[in-house]
């Protein structure tokens, strides 16, 4: 699984990366987490509110920092 955390580096983006790592660790899945800070790349995903979460090139969340539990829910369909 390939996960991207989109955000220029504000506090929200740091928080999103943290809860994502927590969720991945809790689920015990093998995921590659990458941070994307380039504005053109972020906008290229159609994202206008940071932070955003991209799983296997699909935007699953934008504009808020979810709980680790919520991230687990978002990741579940991709664990197959």
């Amino acid at each position: 699984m390939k996960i991207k955390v989109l955000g220029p580096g504000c506090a929200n983006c740091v928080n999103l990366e943290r809860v994502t790592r927590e969720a991945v660790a809790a689920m015990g899945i093998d995921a590659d987490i990458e941070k994307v800070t380039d504005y053109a790349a972020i906008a290229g995903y159609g994202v206008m509110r940071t932070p955003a979460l991209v799983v296997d090139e699909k935007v699953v969340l934008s504009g808020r920092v979810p709980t680790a539990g919520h991230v687990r829910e978002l990741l579940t369909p991709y664990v197959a």
Partner: protein
Amino acid sequence: MSVAERLRARTPTRRWVGLAVAAIVWFALYELNRPLWDWLLLDVLGLDPAGRLGSGVHFFFYDTVKIGLLLVGIIFVVTVLRSFMSVERTRALLGGRREGVGNVMAAGLGVVTPFCSCSAVPAFIGFVAAGVPLGVTMSFLISSPLVNEVAIALLFGMFGIGPTVMYVGAGLTIAIVAGFVLGRLRLERWVEPFVFETRLGGQLIDSTLGLSWDDRIQMGIEEVGVILRKIWPYLLVGIGLGAAIHGWAPEDFFAAYAGAGNPFAVLIAVAIGIPLYSNAAGIMPLVEALHDKGLPMGTLLAFMMAVVALSLPELILLRRVLKPQLIAFFVGVVGVGIIAVGYLFNAVIGV
């Protein structure tokens, strides 16, 4: 159990009853605020309400509680209402609009769309790359911080409906006119080229779709926490300065230097306001204290608008997509608008 789990475990009736109880408690606390501090500070501790220490200390405690309550209540309500609006929907509404009508719509949508300055750059790229005209995008980017829901709430709580309507009307006018002017100037050459080259890919996700009432309430509670955690230091410094001015500044000190008699007061207020990094919540106690000391409303509104609309950190962020010349035009046009509003209000309503 997290807030979300607790909310989900509730039946709809219990959720609405809970909200009603919270609202009643809020009103009760708001009403009890002044009698409580009157009693505790003046009756029990025996402070003199007319003295420097007494009035300063009373201002500090009374204002801290009042502003805290106003922020909690208003941020919650605004966040729940805004959960029905999104940047994605705003862009769809603005796409293909001509300038003029587009500027008016963009300014209005800037007020109601949930948005924070750290998203200014991706939103700017998203708008421009989707074909929203540059000037219309600017109207949105100007009105969003300028007409601020926290400022609206606090102005209404402290000065009543008149100054609040003036503030909103002036903010919208500045955003519409400044965006229109920037659009007419054809400044596209001063936008970083990568913005126009960005191809929007992926499918848009509208984060507001499929939200339940419980989700919206939870977002409201979270947002109150996020904003209060972020602004409390500014708030306490602002109220502290306000209290000091209230208690210790000589009655005519500010009125003499920055009152209606000084033709440069508005210019100076805006010049001080731009680099002052704060937000509406931190600045409002100062505005209240200065108004009590005889500063005219126009000067104070101009000061407040300069602080919230032209913040240095946001300008630095915007540098990623705009060349310095365009940023200078942006600051110039918005600054002139704010100064004009300050002088106009001073001329029309005075102190």
